[in-house]
């Protein structure tokens, strides 16, 4: 084989892995560049970094991060934080309809609006990524387009526009990607019903498969279980300790 790849490999191991110090540096860089527009940050140790910026500085944030080395565009999308008024559509249709708490509660780094756009950029050389979020005002669901900054954002914004109804200033071509041009509504919004489930309700309760060693660990109550094998996995809310 005449054509060979370069043999250099970046060193493996902890030295090449992203550190939290690096992530803190990114927060500092952003604070320098966009100032008060950086509303909130969340750094989960050894995990990931989230930042929330104002919608007006959405483009400036992208520019600042690109200048700081985040040249790899990963994705861009939106979240609708409204709880679904239709529940998870898995309830028995004969039961009383459950009351759904419609309070909007945002996730990491908080938020003030129902809709948020979020995107992820990666620094390939330093092996670190950052998730950027921005609130989109309910009465003016528009942010600046990143498509001139990251060419890959073009299609992601088109998708986001048709699925969530969020507009992008200066986007070259916001046609629908998937849906017919005259389609009404934005399917990924929480108040858009999943029509397949409206027509035919979910057939029965949730099917949960017992885990292989579950029955041994949690015998039925009438059986005299040895004291040292007391069921430790009955806590349904989380992992057993």
């Amino acid at each position, binding site marked *: 084989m005449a054509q060979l790849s370069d043999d250099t490999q970046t060193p493996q191991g902890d030295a090449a892995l992203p550190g939290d110090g690096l992530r803190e540096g990114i927060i500092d860089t952003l604070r320098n560049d966009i100032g008060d527009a950086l509303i909130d940050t969340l750094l989960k140790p050894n995990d990931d970094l989230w930042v929330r910026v104002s919608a007006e500085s959405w483009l400036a944030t992208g520019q600042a991060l690109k200048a700081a080395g985040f040249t790899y565009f990963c994705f861009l999308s939106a979240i609708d934080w409204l709880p679904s008024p239709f529940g998870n559509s898995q309830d028995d249709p004969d039961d009383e309809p459950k009351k759904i708490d419609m309070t909007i509660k945002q996730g990491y780094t908080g938020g003030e609006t129902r809709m948020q756009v979020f995107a992820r950029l990666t620094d390939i050389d330093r092996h670190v990524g950052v998730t950027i979020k921005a609130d989109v005002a309910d009465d003016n669901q528009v942010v600046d387009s990143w498509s001139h900054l990251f060419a890959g954002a073009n299609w992601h914004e088109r998708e986001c526009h048709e699925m969530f109804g969020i507009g992008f200033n200066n986007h070259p071509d916001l046609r629908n990607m998937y849906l017919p041009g005259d389609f009404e509504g934005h399917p990924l919004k929480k108040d858009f019903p999943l029509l397949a489930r409206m027509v035919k309700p979910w057939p029965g309760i949730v099917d949960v498969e017992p885990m292989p060693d579950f029955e041994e660990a949690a015998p039925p109550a009438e059986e005299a279980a040895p004291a040292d094998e007391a069921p430790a996995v009955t806590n*349904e809310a989380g992992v057993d300790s």
Partner: protein
Amino acid sequence: MTLTDRQQLSYIASQAADARLNVELETEGMTLNIGPQHPATHGTLRIIARLDGEQVVWAEPVAGYMHRGYEKLTEVRTFPQVTALVNRIDWLGSFANEVPFILAAEKLMEIEAPPRAQVIRTILFELSRIANVSLFLGDLGVQMGAITPVFLAFRDREYILNLIEGATGGRFHPNFDRIGGLKDDLPKGWIQETKGAVKKLEEFCDTIDDLLFGNEIFQSRMRGIGVIPADVAKDYGLSGANARASGIDWDLRRDQDLPLSYDLADWKVWTHPDGDSWARCWVRLQETRESCKIVGQLLDQVPAGPIMTKVPRIIKVPEGEAWVATENPLGEMGYYVVSKGGLGPFRVKIRSASFNNISIVPWALKGVYVPDIITILASLYFILGDIDR
């Protein structure tokens, strides 16, 4: 003059020629429609290309003929049920689609699969990659009129599919990964059989290397065609072999810390400086070989122990957000999972590799000749289910 300059110049020349012809002869360019059911497009992708003579002036892919709305559907499923959906995103490497979602759920629950499950996961992950990319390597020939490689690919992929079926019960859609481990242990004799099959696949790679990559026609159709420089590739979010063929040394198997067993094996990330169609195919060929190496080494290192960690009978994932991406056969595939503490996810953003890889097509096809449309599309390698989701 670099190849990129040449490509740009040819584009400019084509624009000028178009304008001149329109003025002098009052002719118009031709619009060529490829697909959605053209065999060269691997499914239902449609390409609209505006031609000036033999050159493409402007091209645009039209996706969406296979959109199944998985992001919406995940919101009405429980966490364990989602794997059945995401299996069908990249249907040639189905198991690889399940892994990042399960890892994201495990990250939110703060649990980890036992070592045995991690190694078996990695083996099945790499077998999916071999099954996926071997079909790509066979299919490459078809795009240029060589029929033999595709038969070899279908024959040899069958060894891998049989193994996946043997272990999981499903040839194409294993649905085998569970939060906290795997559904079942490996059947008796599976490890030995896999060793044999991996050898056959290594031979298949050698055959393809001889048949295709050493072929003069193949080289002249591929070399210097469809060059994508590294900065453009990053801009568009190209990942996987497409990025590595442009000289970007970036592989999520190596460059991030996930509970998968890649550090147990000795392997290499291949890159290529050229960024042309040939480089993309060549990197994929080398990757298949590396995958065979990884599987071969991991088969000797499957530890004893349980395949499932203790999880509650009804899985509720704690409130939080997690992003997990893995290096899938087509490139970076990730899930941004938002949980509100319920039985199912609140929102799942599926970042699939082909969506970004195909969004570069309008850029990459500018100024190329009509027959090169097919080879560039083939070398970018996409699966329709992975674009539309």
